[in-house]
């Protein structure tokens, strides 16, 4: 297997930790969702400007055409913003709790956002059933509510298939549900327990789950990312884990997962698949081991490149023709502020293959 070298070509610091990034079609601009606001970042010069703020952390961002963006936040709201006019178009309360994740369909007609608060339901802290629909499907253009779909909260990751026909959502307990976006029917459902911890020590409760998901470009497979089980759920030392599932069959089956000896420890929060399906990239936090971002050969699942970025990675985006990749995340928040202002702790970087 040919190894790939990743070389950093750009590095930008941002005032606040980065949770999400979306890149313009020409790969010159990025919109960045941070703990403390939505930023526009020039990927050539690094110039950045804060556009607006949600009432809480910004969890997801997406481009809608060339001049509009859509963002979602831990305030449960979705915002539409016009970059040309530098003004907010619409602000809509979609969930009572956070929007953990939001994505646009590739045809840009629909928007899916997932929510859910983890509330103890049983003695072992099994999650309570949802109090509001965990998945909302909206018209990307108008915000009209198209579907309210059920799941078990908290639902932490969402993806829409390349043909824009299906939405997949994964939760704390490792349950994946896939719905048909045309008629709202549940077309696949399975649970993989490999991403979820129940605290044997320190705390008897659940933690972890599926933190990122992405359909393969052919739409046949779904890639999941997160972290393997831990004895102490607060240790953050589960195995860096991805799994690939074939979901079309009556009984969805796991096809592959992180190979033995290729993973360290830490929560993986982002997974991105290159459009030519040659490889995919998973990244997150390094708790133990050698890397917190790695490329995997799509066919064989073997690791072909790895990086130690030195910060918690929350987003990976392939740029343009797929010869570059944008990685983003955050370092520790500075421990001291000067007159109420902290130093920069958000990071956006570009690597070429």
């Amino acid at each position, binding site marked *: 297997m040919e190894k790939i070298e990743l070389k950093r070509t750009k590095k930008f610091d941002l005032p606040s930790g980065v949770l999400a990034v979306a890149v313009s079609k020409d790969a010159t601009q990025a919109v960045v969702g941070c703990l403390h606001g939505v930023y526009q970042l020039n990927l050539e010069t690094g110039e950045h400007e804060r556009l607006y703020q949600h009432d809480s952390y910004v969890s997801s961002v997406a481009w809608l055409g060339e001049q509009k963006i859509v963002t979602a936040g831990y305030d449960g709201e979705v915002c539409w913003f016009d970059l040309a006019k530098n003004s907010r178009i619409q602000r809509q309360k979609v969930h009572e*709790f956070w929007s953990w994740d939001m994505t646009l369909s590739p045809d840009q007609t629909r928007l899916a956002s997932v929510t859910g608060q983890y509330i103890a339901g049983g003695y072992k802290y099994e999650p309570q059933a949802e109090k509001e629909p965990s998945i909302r499907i909206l018209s990307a253009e108008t915000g009209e509510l198209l579907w309210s779909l059920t799941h078990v909260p908290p639902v932490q990751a969402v993806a829409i298939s390349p043909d824009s026909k299906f939405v997949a959502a994964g939760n704390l307990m490792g349950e994946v549900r896939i719905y048909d976006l045309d008629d709202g029917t549940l077309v696949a459902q399975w649970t993989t327990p490999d991403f979820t911890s129940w605290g044997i020590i*320190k705390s*008897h409760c659940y*933690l972890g789950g599926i933190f990122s998901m992405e359909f393969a470009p052919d739409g046949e497979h779904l890639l999941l990312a997160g972290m393997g089980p831990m004895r102490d759920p*607060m240790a953050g030392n589960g195995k860096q884990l991805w799994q690939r599932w074939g979901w079309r069959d009556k009984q969805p089956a796991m096809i592959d997962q992180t190979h033995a000896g290729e993973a360290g420890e830490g929560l993986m929060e982002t997974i991105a698949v290159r459009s030519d399906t040659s490889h995919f990239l998973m990244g997150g936090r390094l708790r133990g081991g050698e890397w917190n971002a790695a490329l995997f050969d799509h066919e064989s699942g073997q690791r072909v490149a790895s990086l130690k970025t030195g910060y918690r990675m929350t987003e990976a985006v392939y740029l343009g023709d797929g010869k570059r990749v944008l990685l983003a995340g*955050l370092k*520790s928040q500075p421990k001291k*502020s000067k007159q*109420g*202002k902290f130093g920069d702790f958000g990071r956006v970087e570009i690597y070429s293959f």
Partner: protein
Amino acid sequence: MKTRHFPLNRKPSDRSCGSTEHTLHRRLFLQGAMAAGVASTGSFSGLFSVPALADVAKKSGKKCILLWLCGAPSQFETWDPKPGTETGGPFQAIETNLPGVKISSLMPQCATIMDKLAVIRSMKTEPGEHFQGIDVLTRGDQPRPPFTRPILGSVIAQQLGQLDSPVPQFVLLDPCPEGNEFKQFKAGNWAGWLGAEYGPIRAGGNYSIPNINRLDEISQVDHADREALRKFLSSKFENDQRSEAAASHNAAFNRVNGLMSCAPLFDLKQLPEKDRQRYGGGAFAQHALQARHLIENGSTFVMVANGMPWDNHVFQHEMHQMLVPELDNVLYQLVSDLEDRGMLQDTLVIAMGEFGRTPWLNEARGRDHYPKAWSLAMAGGGIRGGVVHGATDPLGFEVVEGQVDNRNLFATIFEALGVDPHQEYDLPGLPTFYRVEEDAQPIREILV
């Protein structure tokens, strides 16, 4: 001027506050328990079906429930929110029934009973690691090796407990067998210089108390006969031989025998289903309800813990979104229940951990240990409700008003419960100890 009080090593019969309410005739008690044993197969409420016993249990003075939030909760996501700031985290603040006072949006139920709670937003303590923090915040002070200061529950059980009660006076409900540093702490010496008899009875989850159920093959009558015979022979031996070992053995046996008589109190399944649902399904909530029942039925101090789930160096907000609402509901239900039963005035409820959490987020989306500025809450039992004591700066880095340390806190707790905070322990040839050292003063503002 401090008052010199009795030495620690006096006889057990001298240790209660002297009220006749603390003394219950054993035979009467056991008769009641046995009579109840028949009646209480479905509900432990039968344990005190003899009215005289129920009255004595309920009138027996001040009690305390400690909701021990081990691992240390974040003050930002509970009592001292800083929404919209760099340190505030993702949750908002909400109005409470105290004008101008806001708490975390994760605590909507407590927001409706803030007039019954006293919140301290200005805790500043020394230890920044769990073991030392747990030690100081459960015992009241730093260790002075080789002397072990008794934990709060042991002191209260000794000072306010009903010595003749079969119901354990100090109970620890904690179903999590391991809690890292809390496990080490639990394995240590709880009662310190008071003696092991004032240590806790531990129950919860898999920690059901072993061998407290009468074997099926032994009838109630047979069991009583055996007990009478054992008592006669051991008392005779104790008297004839003046044997302390026999006395100790008898004390231990009586304790187990007492536990047998109140076994239903430790059976979660016998708690009313409606109450269990109201408190919430999680282990912590269920044991908080059990704590209420234990207090209602004669325990003096119940500590409710659940391992150390609050130590969120990783997944701070993902964990607090679940833990804080559970605490919110538990505190609300507990305070409301105690008030409805006319018990709040005499029952102190404390919700606290061993320190707070950092204003800044670490790289793993967590908050780390922070003893410099943190919060806790109390209600009932000599504490004035509707008071928010102290304040931190706008980002929560420093205490800027009304600083409180562990000594002030313990002086307040003891004062509220009617226990002399400054009692001196005069042990010949040993250093002088005080219940609260350095003459630290209570927070007068929050005392009734």
